[in-house]
C-alpha cells in the first residue's frame, strides 16, 4: 500500500516500474516479436543478411538496420533483453546466495572465523573489479556463463557485509532471545528469524546491482571478452558500432542506427532498475517520510 502511494506521488519511479514490466514482456514474448529463423544453432545467434562489411540503414527487411557483417539489429535488441535479464538476475541472485552464506556464518559464529571471512572480503574488495572480471572471462572463454561466473566471483562482497551487519544488529533484539529461550536451533534462528528481517536492505542493494551488473557484462563484451561473435547481446552490438559512430566527413550521422537502438535498449533497461531501486530505498528508509 505504502509502495503504491509512493508511486502515485513519484511519477518518475512509476516510469521505472512500467519500463521494467515492458522489458519483461519483450523478454517473454521474444519468439513472437522476433521469430527465429532457419540455420540458427540457438535462438541467441543473430541472423545475418549477407557478409557486407558496411552497416546498412533501416529497411523493411531489417527495421533497425544491420551492423558491420550484416547482423540484424532489431533481432539482437529483442533477444538481447533475455540475455540482459539472464545475466543481471543470474549474477545478482548467485552473489546474494554466496554473500548471505558468508555474511551469516561470519556474524553468527564470530571470533576467528569472522575475522578470516571479513579479511577475504577485504581482499576481494581491493581487486579492480572490471579488470579482474576481464581476466577471468578471458581465461574461461566467451559466453554468458563465463561472464556470469566472472561477475559473481568479484561481485558478492557487498551482500556479505550487509548481511553480517544486519545479523549483528538483529541478533541482540528481544524476539531472538525469546526464540532461543524456547530452544530454537542456530540454523532455525538464522533462516527463519534473522534473515527475513535482513531482507530489505539486501533487496535494495540487489535491485540497484542488477542494472550495474548488466552494464559491467556489456562492458566486457565491448572490451572484447564477453559473449561470442553475433550473440544477441546489447554490449556486443554496441561494440560493432564503435568503428562507425564517427560517420563520414560531411555526414556524421550516417550510421546512427548502429549505436542508437542497442544503446537505447541498455540505457532504458538499466535506468528502469535504477529507478525501481531508488524508489525502494526511499520507501524502506524512514528518513524520507515527511
Amino acid at each position, binding site marked *: 500500500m505504502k509502495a503504491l502511494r509512493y508511486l502515485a506521488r513519484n511519477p518518475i519511479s512509476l516510469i521505472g516500474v512500467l519500463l521494467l514490466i515492458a522489458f519483461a514482456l519483450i523478454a517473454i514474448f521474444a519468439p513472437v516479436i522476433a521469430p527465429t529463423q532457419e540455420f540458427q544453432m540457438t535462438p541467441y545467434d543473430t541472423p545475418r543478411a549477407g557478409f557486407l562489411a558496411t552497416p546498412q540503414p533501416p529497411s523493411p527487411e531489417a527495421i533497425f538496420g544491420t551492423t558491420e557483417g550484416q547482423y540484424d539489429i532489431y533481432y539482437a535488441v529483442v533477444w538481447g533483453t533475455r540475455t540482459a535479464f539472464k545475466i543481471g538476475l543470474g549474477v545478482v541472485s548467485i552473489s546474494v546466495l554466496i554473500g548471505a552464506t558468508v555474511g551469516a556464518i561470519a556474524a553468527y559464529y564470530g571470533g576467528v572465523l569472522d575475522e578470516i571471512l571479513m579479511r*577475504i572480503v577485504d581482499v576481494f574488495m581491493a581487486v579492480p573489479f572490471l579488470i579482474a572480471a576481464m581476466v577471468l572471462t578471458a581465461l574461461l572463454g566467451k559466453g554468458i556463463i563465463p561472464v556470469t561466473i566472472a561477475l559473481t566471483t568479484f561481485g558478492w562482497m557487498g551482500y556479505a557485509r550487509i548481511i553480517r551487519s544486519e545479523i549483528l544488529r538483529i541478533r541482540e533484539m528481544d524476539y531472538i532471545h525469546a526464540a532461543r529461550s524456547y530452544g530454537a536451533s542456530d540454523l532455525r534462528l538464522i533462516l527463519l528469524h534473522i534473515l527475513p528481517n535482513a531482507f530489505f536492505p539486501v533487496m535494495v542493494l540487489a535491485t540497484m546491482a542488477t542494472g550495474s551488473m548488466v552494464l559491467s557484462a556489456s562492458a566486457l563484451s565491448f572490451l572484447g571478452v564477453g559473449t561470442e561473435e553475433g550473440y544477441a547481446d546489447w554490449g556486443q552490438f554496441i561494440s560493432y558500432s564503435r568503428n562507425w*559512430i564517427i560517420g563520414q566527413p560531411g555526414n*556524421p550521422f550516417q550510421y546512427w542506427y548502429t549505436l542508437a537502438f542497442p544503446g537505447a535498449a541498455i540505457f532504458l533497461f538499466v535506468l528502469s532498475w535504477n529507478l525501481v531501486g531508488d524508489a525502494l530505498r526511499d520507501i524502506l528508509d524512514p528518513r524520507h517520510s515527511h
Partner: protein
Amino acid sequence: MLNYAFRRLLMLPVVMFALSLMIFGLQMSLTPTQRLAAYAPSPDFLKGGQDSIRRLIEQYGLNDPFYLQYGRWIGNILTGNLGWSETARQPVGTALTSLLPATLELVFIAFVPGLLLAIYLGSRAGIYLNRWQDHLIRFFTIFGWSFPVYVFGLLMLLIFYSVLDWFPPGRLSQWAQAVVTSRDFVRYTGANTIDSLLNGNLPVFFDSLRHLAAPVITLIYVNLANMTRVMRTSMLETLRQDYVRTARAKGLRRRVVELKHARRNALLPVVTIAGMELAYMMGGVVITETIFDYSGLGQFAAKSAANLDFPAILGFGLYFAVVLVVLNLVVDLIYPLLDPRVKTR
C-alpha cells in the same frame, strides 16, 4: 583513531599477499611457454625457437611445483622486478610509472568539479525534498548513472568530435605531441597540462585541455549519482537535527540555516564516499580511456587483461591495492579534522 589507521596500513601486506596468490593462481592455468613471458627482461629473450624456449622453461623452473614457482616469482617482485609486459613492450614498472601521470591528470580534473557539483546538487535535492527540484536532480543523476560509459562516450565523440570538431580523442594533437617530445620541452611531471604551463607553452596547454574535455565530462556525469545521493540523504538527516530547529527558532533565515549550519555537517558522509569514488576512478577509468584513446593506466590494464598479460595485470592490481589503502587512510585521517566528535570515541 591513529591506532585504527595504523591497523589499516598493516592490512596492506596481507591484501597484497592474497592478491598476488590470486593472480598467480589464475596465471598457473596457462602453459609454461605462455608463462615464460613473465620472466623475460626483454622481447629478444623469447626469440630463439622451440629448443631455446624448452631450455628456458627448464632454466626458470616453470614445470616446478606451485609453491616453488610462487616463491621465486614473489622474490622477483620484492626486488622490484615486476617482469616484462608484452602489451606495452616494456618492463611493467616502466609502463606503470610512465602512464600514471596521464591517468592522475584525467582523474583529478574530473574528480574535483564532480565532487563540488554533487555537493551542490545533493544539498539542493535535500532542501527541496519531494518538490520538482528534487525530482529533476534525481532524474538527471540517475539518467547519467544508467548510461553505459561507452555509450555516453561514443555519443560525446559523435557530437563533440564528429559534428563540432571541438574535442578530439587521444591525449594531444600531432603538432603538440611533437612539441612535448622535443628536446626543449622539460617533462617535470608527465602530466601535459602542468608541464605545458611550467614550460610556458600555452598552445600545448589548451590543446591538452581540448583532449581532456570529453573524457572529463563523461567521467563527471556517469559518476555523479552516488555522491549526490549520499549528500541528499545526509542533508535530510541533518535538517532534522535539534540544532537546526534551534537555529530556526532563534529567528535565523532558512537559507542561512540550511547552507551555513546544515550543509557543513552534512558533508561528513560525503568525505567517506568521495574517497571510495576517487579510488574507484583511479582504478576504473578503463572504459573512458579506451573510448577516447587516452593512453593511461586504464587503457593499458584493459589491453593487458584482454591479452592475459599477467605481469602487467599483477602490476596494475598491486597499484590499485596501494591506491585503495592509501586513500582509505587519508579519509581516516581527514575525518577527525572535520568532525571533532570522532576523536573522543
